[in-house]
Structure formats: structure tokens, C-alpha cells
């Protein structure tokens, strides 16, 4: 049991990274429009994030310092500031969407408009950041987020034609009525969602919060190899559920509420209860991750004391950044901006900014001054370099593609 609980950091990070509000909607929409023709992107994304998250965790365990902290020191203030600027903005958009996601999950249960729940959700996130220990936080929300496994159960209960699903996934083609640019746009959105930068910031900072050392490299691997593939599996289950139930009816996902339909159809009220719990926990967990990541990146850039392992009185500026971000995110959410649109833009913009996060990490993970004998092996470097090349291509084409396809419309 203790070993299982040891991987909750990876599970929480992956649930935030793979099934937060943006991913839930992006995966569900991909399934409803393209069936499983984009399943390969999830697998490519899982491999990429596994390679880089393992690197981030290893750097944190060996050096005792989080990714952003070392990037600032190794690459200098200017390069780190570009990274900080892009990451903080994207992270903030994600935080807006996650807080709205928590509010919508409560609305689906209570029937009371989500706008009323936004300040309550932001306050609750702040209270958890302020009062709850890091370890308890990751265990509670990481494990509750696993309720989203109900999508996999729903898929099995729906009794689909497995051969057809496998064929869709292994012979991807653009369905009639959809264009190749939209297909490519959704591919990039799913890839960007899988490799969101805040995942590595949160994961490496979490490793420092938990005082990982060189002795925890195996724990790092367990977190990465279990947590992220599990997140990818949840993404695929969500995609399959909407592909089976919604695609034949021509239903397009435009709201978080619509994601519940396949589970209702398959498992009824009990399944719905799990979905609502899972969406609440996943978005709440992602709000915690993004809220804390806002504080982590800024504090690590300026060299301030940071983290939940120090008392708030010893790290006032870190806590102030987290609080300020939460208040600002709640205020933006209260303007009734469409949270689904916010999150779609945030994952696409994050795709454009990915090399800024992953290139410095690759440099640091190869630096013997920081890593000693724990530098990257040849295999990891080859795969990571291939991914870096993909990230560069994605970064270049993302924005023009978003404009050309009107964000996949």
C-alpha cells in the first residue's frame, strides 16, 4: 500500500495533465468527430511526456532543485524570462479554465449556475494550498481523479465492435465531412494537452516538496511509468466512449456537461455519480497544480523561498503569487468567458511554447555539473531529440493552423 501511495504524485500530475477540463473536452470532441482516428496522438504524447517528466524528476532528485530553478541558473535570466513569460500566461489561462471546471462539476450536481460556484471553488483551492499538506493533497485528488476510470468501464459495458475500434485506431483516416486541417489541428491540440509545460514544473517541484534524493530515482521512474500511461489510458477511454455513443448521432462536444452522456447511457446514475466525482477531482487537482505552478515558476525565477514544505511566513511572496493568481483567475472566470474556449486556446498556445520548456530541461539533464553520473543515456537523448524536433515543428505551425481552421471549427 505504501508503495502504491508513493506514486500518487505521478498520478495527480498525469490526471491534471491528461484529464483536466481541456483534455476532457479535447478528447471527447476528438472521439465525437474523428472516432479513434486520433488515438495515436495520445500514445505519442504519453511517450513524450514520460521521457521528459522522468528527466525532470531525475534532475530534481539528483540536484534537489526544481526544473525552473535550474533553467534560470544554467541558461541565464533572459532565456528563463522568455520561458517564464510564456509558461505563466498559459498556466494562468489553464487555471481560469480549471476553476470554471470545478464550478461546472458542482453545477451538474446542484443545478445552481456555475458562475455562483466560481468564487467558492477559488476559495476552496486556496484553502487546500494553504492548509493541506502536499502529500495529503496529492493522495486525495490523485486517487479521487481515478474515478474517471468509469469511462473505461462504460466502454466495456457498451459492448462495442472491438475490431472496428482497433481498425479506427490503427488505420487513422479523416471521416467524411471533416477536413485535413481540422484533423491536424486536433492532433496538435491533443499533443499540446499531453505535454502541457506545467506538468513538468509541478512534477519536479513536487519531487522537491517531497524531499526526493538520489535514492528515489526508482520512485521517480515508478511515478512516471505508472502515472502518465494511466492518464493516457483515461484519455483513450474518454475518446472511445464518445466515439461509440456520440459520433454516430453527429453530436459535437461544446460543453463539459455533454461529456457525461456516454456514461449515463451505459451505466446510468451510478456511473454518472462517478463521472461527476472524477471531473470534480480532476479539475480541482489541476487547479491546485496550476495554482501552485504559478507560484513555483515565479518564485524559482526570482530565487525566493518557495513550496508547501516551508511555512507561509517563510515564503510570503510564493503564497502571494498563488493567491493573486487564484483571485485573478476567479475574476476572469466571472466574466462568463467560455471555459471550454479558454482551455482550448491554452492547450494550443502551450503547444506553441513547448520547446521553451523542454529544450532547457534537455540541456540541464546532460550537464554533469548538476547531474554527475545521472546524465541522460544515449537512448533517452535520441528519443528526446526526436521529440524536440517534433515540438519545434508543432510550435511553428500551431498558430497559423489555429487561424486557418478557426480553432478546428
Amino acid at each position, binding site marked *: 500500500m505504501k508503495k502504491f501511495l508513493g506514486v500518487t504524485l505521478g498520478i495527480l500530475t498525469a490526471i491534471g495533465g491528461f484529464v483536466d477540463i481541456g483534455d476532457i473536452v479535447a478528447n471527447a470532441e476528438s472521439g465525437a468527430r474523428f472516432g479513434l482516428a486520433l488515438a495515436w496522438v495520445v500514445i505519442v504524447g504519453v511517450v513524450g511526456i514520460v521521457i521528459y517528466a522522468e528527466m525532470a524528476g531525475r534532475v530534481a532528485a539528483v540536484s534537489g532543485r526544481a526544473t525552473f530553478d535550474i533553467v534560470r541558473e544554467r541558461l541565464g535570466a533572459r532565456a528563463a524570462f522568455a520561458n517564464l513569460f510564456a509558461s505563466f500566461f498559459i498556466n494562468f489561462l489553464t487555471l481560469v479554465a480549471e476553476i470554471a471546471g470545478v464550478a461546472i462539476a458542482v453545477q*451538474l450536481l446542484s443545478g445552481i449556475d456555475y458562475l455562483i460556484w466560481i468564487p467558492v471553488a477559488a476559495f476552496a483551492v486556496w484553502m487546500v494550498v494553504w492548509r493541506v499538506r502536499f502529500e495529503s493533497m496529492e493522495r486525495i485528488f490523485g486517487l479521487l481523479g481515478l474515478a474517471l476510470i468509469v469511462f473505461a468501464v462504460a466502454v466495456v459495458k457498451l459492448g462495442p465492435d472491438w475490431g472496428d475500434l482497433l481498425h479506427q485506431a490503427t488505420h487513422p483516416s479523416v471521416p467524411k465531412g471533416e477536413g485535413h486541417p481540422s484533423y491536424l489541428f486536433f492532433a496538435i491540440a491533443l499533443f499540446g494537452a499531453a505535454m502541457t509545460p506545467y506538468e513538468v514544473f509541478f512534477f519536479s517541484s513536487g519531487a522537491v516538496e517531497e524531499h526526493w534524493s538520489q535514492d528515489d530515482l526508482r520512485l521517480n521512474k515508478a511515478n512516471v511509468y505508472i502515472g502518465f500511461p494511466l492518464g493516457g489510458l483515461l484519455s483513450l477511454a474518454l475518446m472511445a466512449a464518445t466515439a461509440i455513443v456520440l459520433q454516430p448521432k*453527429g453530436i459535437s462536444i461544446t460543453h463539459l456537461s455533454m461529456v*457525461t452522456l456516454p456514461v449515463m447511457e451505459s451505466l446510468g*446514475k451510478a456511473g*454518472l455519480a462517478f463521472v461527476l466525482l472524477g471531473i470534480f477531482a480532476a479539475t480541482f487537482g489541476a487547479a491546485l497544480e496550476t495554482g501552485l505552478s504559478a507560484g513555483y515558476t515565479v518564485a524559482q525565477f526570482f530565487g525566493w523561498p518557495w513550496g508547501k514544505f516551508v511555512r507561509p511566513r517563510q515564503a510570503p511572496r510564493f503564497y502571494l503569487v498563488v493567491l493573486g493568481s487564484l483571485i485573478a483567475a476567479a475574476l476572469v472566470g466571472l466574466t462568463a468567458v467560455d471555459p471550454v474556449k479558454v482551455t482550448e486556446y491554452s492547450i494550443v498556445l502551450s503547444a506553441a511554447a513547448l520547446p521553451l520548456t523542454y529544450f532547457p530541461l534537455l540541456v540541464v539533464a546532460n550537464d554533469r555539473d548538476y547531474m554527475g553520473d545521472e546524465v541522460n543515456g544515449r537512448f533517452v537523448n535520441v528519443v528526446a531529440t526526436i521529440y524536440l524536433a517534433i515540438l519545434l515543428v508543432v510550435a511553428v505551425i500551431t498558430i497559423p493552423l489555429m487561424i486557418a481552421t478557426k480553432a478546428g471549427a
Partner: protein
Amino acid sequence: MSRPWLLAVVFLATGACAVPVPTARSAADYGKKAGHTAEDVHSAIETTVVALDNATHGRTLPTTLNVVVSDAEDDARGAMSTFQRIAPRGQGAGAIHDRLVPLLNDAADAITRARQLARRGQTSAGDVEPVTRRLAEIARALDDFANAQP
């Protein structure tokens, strides 16, 4: 603040507040946009039908049903309002407009009726059946319309 800067700020602020008016360059373009609108509203109708069916079979919570149907209604009315802001241009665009707009109105009204039933908790098969039948008729008509467009 110097005058050029002030003008730039005013220009950007005005631009940020402006809502872009959708346009169609030709009748074919108008037809394409009409087809997309029909598909969007068709999706909202099907969402409503699936949600009502789940309610009839006791597979959903009243609060969740309400939210799903309200969201579908917002989508249908949003798509209708966007389409109605596009000025028909070119030969044949007027006919497309005259054929689609009544369907969109019927769809929005039927979804509103479904939302009212959901709100009152009237989700027995007898209560829901006339509405779902009407929704199915409109969905078929929208489907035919969308398939006829370029």
C-alpha cells in the same frame, strides 16, 4: 501619454470590444455556412434527445439533465443568431435563408420545450414522446438540408 499612444490604446480597446460580424463572400460560401449551422443545430437536437431518453429510463439526475439541455439550447440559439447576422449574398442565398431559418426557429423552440419539461421533472415516456418526435422530424429536415449544401 503622447497622442499616438493614446490613439493606439483607444483603437485597441475599441477593437477588443467589437464583435466581428460574420460575412459570406458568395452564395456558395453562404450555403456552406448554412450547412455548418444546420449541423450545429442538429447536434444540439441529438444531445437533447439523448439526454431526454436517459431521463425517461431513469439514468440521469434531474440537475444534470437540466444543465445538458440548457447547454444544448444555448448552442442552438447561438448558432441561429450567428447565422442570422450573415447577410445573404449572391443568387440563391435568399432561398437558402428562407429554407433554413424556419427550421432553426422550430429547433430552438422544440429544445426550449424540452428544457421546460426537464425543469418541471416531467420526464415520463408519455410527457417526453411528443417533444422527441418533433425533435426527430426537425433533425431529419436539418440533415437533408445540410446534405444538400456544398
